[in-house]
């Protein structure tokens, strides 16, 4: 692996879904080329139904691209695997496991001994600020807390890349703000390559080193790229923040 090689690369990735016995085909993604650097925080922003979740699922290995390929550290991605941590929009915690049981699941599946995986889980539960809730079941937690568990669970596997699929889409505005701040704090504590998908421009500017917008209609294509050089923690009311927000909002075409 060359030191300056990008962490994760998509080359000419397209995806077409086929429905109903091959009679209807829907092109969802078309010729996506993307390279994400190590420890970069990339945000992909686009309106609903633009294919951004499908792109993330292809990088996760949960969908196979119709054309093109995805590689991680130069090796092709052929299926889901623990070197990529996925955080789901709908949390997808295991309801029959406590917080600690959810967080330690990755190490457990790898056969890490109990004492050691408890230690790993404890570390990440502390990192996401859920100390004291180790024994709670997911249904006893609020949405924000559930997603903290989701983030800790993905982190506990020590993945090379974190993939977040509209992780705060189910939260109310205030909790969402708080979770964005927490995301920055956690990411600064444990740097990872992050690909964060959202439909929220504000969230994108608050979080990203780089923002890529997608076109608002199918098939999804990458549209423009913005480098965000504002220092963290960012202020939503900064002039530069607002200028960038204005710029992205202007060019984002919504399918209304």
């Amino acid at each position, binding site marked *: 692996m060359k030191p300056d090689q990008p962490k994760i690369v998509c080359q000419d990735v397209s995806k077409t879904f086929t429905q109903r016995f091959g009679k209807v085909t829907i092109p969802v993604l078309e010729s996506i080329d993307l390279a994400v650097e190590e420890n970069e925080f990339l945000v992909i922003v686009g309106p609903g139904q633009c294919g951004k979740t499908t792109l993330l699922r292809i990088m996760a290995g949960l969908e196979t691209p119709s054309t093109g390929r995805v590689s991680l550290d130069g090796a092709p991605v052929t299926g889901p*695997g623990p070197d990529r941590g996925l955080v789901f929009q*709908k949390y997808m915690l*295991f*309801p*029959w496991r406590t917080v600690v049981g959810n967080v330690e699941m990755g190490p457990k*599946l790898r056969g890490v001994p109990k004492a050691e995986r408890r230690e790993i889980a404890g570390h990440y539960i502390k990192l996401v600020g859920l100390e004291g809730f180790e024994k709670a*079941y997911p249904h006893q937690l609020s949405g924000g807390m559930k997603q903290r568990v989701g983030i800790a669970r993905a982190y506990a596997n020590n993945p090379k890349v974190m993939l977040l699929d509209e992780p705060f889409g189910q939260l109310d505005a205030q909790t969402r703000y708080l979770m964005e701040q927490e995301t920055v704090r956690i990411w600064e504590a444990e740097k990872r390559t992050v690909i964060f998908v959202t439909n929220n421009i504000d969230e994108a500017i608050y979080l990203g080193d780089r923002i890529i917008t997608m076109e608002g209609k199918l098939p999804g294509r990458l549209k423009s790229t913005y480098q965000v050089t504002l220092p963290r923690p960012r202020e939503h009311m900064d002039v530069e923040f607002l200028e960038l927000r204005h710029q992205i909002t202007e060019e984002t075409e919504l399918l209304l």
Partner: protein
Amino acid sequence: MSSQAEATLGLNPRVYQSGLGARLWSFFHNRYVLYGLSVIGFLAIWHWAALHSSIAKFLPTPAEVWTEMVRLSGDRLAGKTLWGHLWASLRRVLIGFAIGLAVGVPLGLFMALNKYVNAVVKPVFDLIKPMPPISWISLSILWFGIGEESKVFIIVVGAFVPALINSYNGIRLVDPALYDAIRMLGGNRRQELLQVTFPAGFPALFAGFQIALSVAWGCVLAAELVGARSGMGYIIILGMKVFNPAMIIGGMVVIALVAGMLSLLLNKVEKVICPWKRELPQ
């Protein structure tokens, strides 16, 4: 908040702020007091109906039923006291229920996990499913005689249907994204089964057990009504033959109590095994 608004919302019933009124108000709003009133009210209506209604001739009072139950628990009918007959029925239910689950649960599991098994089993199962289990009684007696086997057979037929349906649906309807989650964490096929499929299916499985249990009681009664010298069904049919409605109702009450307790026990077991399941409002 203005006092008028409070009154409208019922937050501050001024009339009962203190004294006897308040104490009566809170007494009659106590859940357990209302439970008691409900039971007493029911018994009172029953008692009245047993004395004055048009079916009074064959409706004993609650007290007469109680006396009859006490008598039956000492006297022997066909060689058994009430408890002996209860045990005869309970034993059939438990054996049939256990066999029904042992057949239905794995079959449902394999049907949900393997589409070929499903394709082979489902047409036959769909044919058997709507048949009332009691309709098997005649065949069962021809095949197995009037002994224990024929009764247990009916219960097995009745219990395995809901057990199979619920294990099949419970596992088939697991959120596929949970499988995505376990795969992303590095789970293999075996770990998917152990960590997602089974635990996700448990609550539906237990719901099926509850249905199977109640069907099992229905089946044992029907089987005993048709031909038996023991069991609660025998007591009930004997009560009809000797014109003793107190015996019939006594039998019904005992069945209700035992079946209810068994169902409650199953609930407790579920809570221990599936502590994550949110409790539904009763």
